[in-house]
């Protein structure tokens, strides 16, 4: 397949495994084992069963009638917001905890920004009776208090990352440091299509259930598996990778990724990596990265904590590079307006991350009979505080 990762973990010029030697055995074990394990029939059966019975899959592909009327196109929403725990993140954590079990690991660590991946990890650890430590930036802990308590309620230990900017990238650094110090009994569940190979490919595969379902559902709803456009938001890019995965080789399907432009791409307060980034290495892979001329990683900004990451997954950097995926960006304001709009038109309050994908609707030229699928990656309950502060509804 044209867009698959190569044997060294590269997508074109991006990817690889830039890890300290101390982590080499862990990454090598994963690299050697992950496909063997996840392609086993017994693994697939258990994964599928948990996705069905526990997560609530398949999630609906919902025809958004009033939204369609407004934008004069046929708009479907892939309802990942209806997954258990409220976002697509759990697809990956279910997959990885089964993998961790197959590798005989006893402990789980994870990083989290807004707390969604942390909650999804704490959830599957409770389900499997495994010890769970989640690293979260001290700043994020303060602004995402409810998710911190959700993780604790689920039995996880939440450790504040106090280094650097005390946000997602620093939580990731701390999780890596923990893994360096505890290399044998611990599995690190990375939450996005980032990190050293094989993580980006592994996470994309676990999330690919999203596009597998879209194909089947759209076939039965519209008599065709291929929509004209698929739109998804991108922070690290796991929901987009999942929504695009089974369409990458169908070149006539236009794939659109929406990054967070914060207060605007020229404002110095943005997280739009393909606009502001250059190739660089962070968290184990070569990708597009927001950085200074001197190669120091720049702290991004977005109203949405889930998109507040200075890089993107190497698969997305490659898809951007070769032009397979078109990248748009939406500002805080555009996203908030789109979030309120969906709430009013469809009775669905989206996560602010997903609202960035919705915001692309007003930026694209749409044709009346076009079929558009928007990946509604999460629900907005966790963002109520931000909506209240925003106030314009």
């Amino acid at each position, binding site marked *: 397949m044209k867009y698959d990762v190569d044997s*060294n973990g590269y997508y074109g010029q991006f990817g*690889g*495994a*830039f*890890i*300290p*030697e*101390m982590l*080499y*055995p862990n990454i090598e074990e994963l690299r050697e084992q992950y496909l063997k394990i996840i392609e086993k029939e017994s693994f697939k059966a258990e994964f599928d069963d948990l996705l069905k019975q526990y997560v609530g899959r398949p999630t609906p592909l919902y025809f958004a009638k009033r939204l369609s009327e407004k934008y004069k196109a046929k708009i479907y929403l892939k309802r990942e917001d209806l997954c258990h725990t409220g976002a697509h993140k759990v697809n990956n954590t279910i997959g990885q905890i089964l993998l961790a079990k197959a590798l005989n690991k006893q402990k789980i660590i994870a990083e989290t920004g807004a707390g969604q991946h942390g909650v999804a990890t704490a959830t599957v650890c409770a389900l499997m009776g495994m010890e769970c430590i989640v690293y979260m930036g001290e700043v994020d802990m303060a602004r995402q208090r409810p998710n911190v308590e959700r993780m604790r309620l689920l039995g996880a230990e939440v450790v504040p990352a106090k*280094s*650097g900017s005390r946000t997602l*990238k*620093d939580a990731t*650094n701390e999780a*890596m*440091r923990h893994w*360096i*110090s*505890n*290399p*044998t009994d611990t599995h690190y569940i990375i939450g996005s299509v980032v990190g050293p190979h094989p993580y980006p490919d592994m996470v994309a595969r676990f999330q690919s259930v999203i596009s597998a379902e879209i194909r089947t559902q759209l076939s039965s709803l519209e008599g065709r598996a291929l929509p004209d456009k698929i739109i998804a938001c991108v922070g690290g890019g796991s929901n987009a990778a999942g929504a695009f995965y089974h369409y990458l080789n169908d070149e006539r399907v236009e794939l659109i990724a929406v990054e967070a432009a914060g207060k605007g791409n020229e404002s110095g307060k943005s997280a739009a990596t393909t606009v502001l980034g*250059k*190739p*660089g*290495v*962070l*968290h*184990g892979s070569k990708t597009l*990265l927001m*950085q200074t*001329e*001197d*190669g*120091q*990683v720049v702290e991004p900004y977005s109203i949405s904590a889930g998109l507040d990451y200075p890089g993107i997954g190497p698969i997305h950097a490659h898809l951007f590079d070769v032009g397979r995926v078109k990248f748009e960006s939406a500002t805080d304001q555009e996203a908030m307006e789109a979030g309120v709009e969906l709430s009013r038109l469809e009775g669905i309050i989206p996560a602010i991350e997903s609202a960035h994908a919705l915001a692309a609707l007003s930026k694209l030229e749409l044709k009346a009979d076009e079929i558009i699928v928007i990946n509604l990656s999460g629900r907005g309950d966790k963002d109520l505080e931000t909506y209240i502060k925003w106030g314009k509804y």
Partner: protein
Amino acid sequence: MQLEAYYMNRINKLFNEKSSGILSVYYTAGFPNIDDTLSITQHLQSAGADMVEIGIPFSDPVADGPTIQESNQKALDNGMTLKLLFEQLKGLRESVDIPVILMGYINPVIQFGLKDFCKACQEVGVDGLILPDLPVLEYQEHYQSTFQQYGLKNVFLISPQTSEDRIKHIDSISDSFIYMVSSAGTTGAKDKFSKENMTYFQRIKDMELNNPTLTGFGISNHTTFEQATQTSSGAIVGSAFIKTITNSTDLKKDVHEFVKRLTGLRGTN
């Protein structure tokens, strides 16, 4: 023979002349103050350190513990950059003859430009590099030939988890020394090494590698220094040194006392 020795890389020369008790000290460029980089090197040399590793500060140093992380952040806040570091090291070889290694993460090197970076290293008289997040395979495919072209030795790390086969492979592509990480963990000071640590040190010694080894991560005092030098050619000290200079008001005195305390004897002028 004499000519060969003259052109020999300073790291190789050191290990040729000395097979035990080598002290290599790590510190972060531009820390505690932005202009301290060169003077700390000079003080370390006069205090009797055998080699220095100058850290290129990075915003996200994943292999480092809290002490070195903080020194990196402070150095960046002070305005340190790789470009400035090469400026500061311009006169290095007028006063310093011990081997100098740059240690840092790969991203600043990529942004500087690999070739420009290596050229600048050679011009100021840097002898080797330690880049913890540059993996072996990546090095061999994309970096090795450029490093060699500019006479730079790349130093690889091994840890207690590194398999015997991989250690042998790393040994086969090294031509200076191997950095033996003392235990599973990031950089940071320890009071003493456990029996388990010592068993690992002995295991590596018994492998009789072609390259000498230096033990690093956790060396903080005379006890750990002595333990490390029993089974390898010497020790690398970082966090403990950073702690010493963090609030120093007399760098020369503190650096000398540190080396003396650690080795038990050096530090005369």
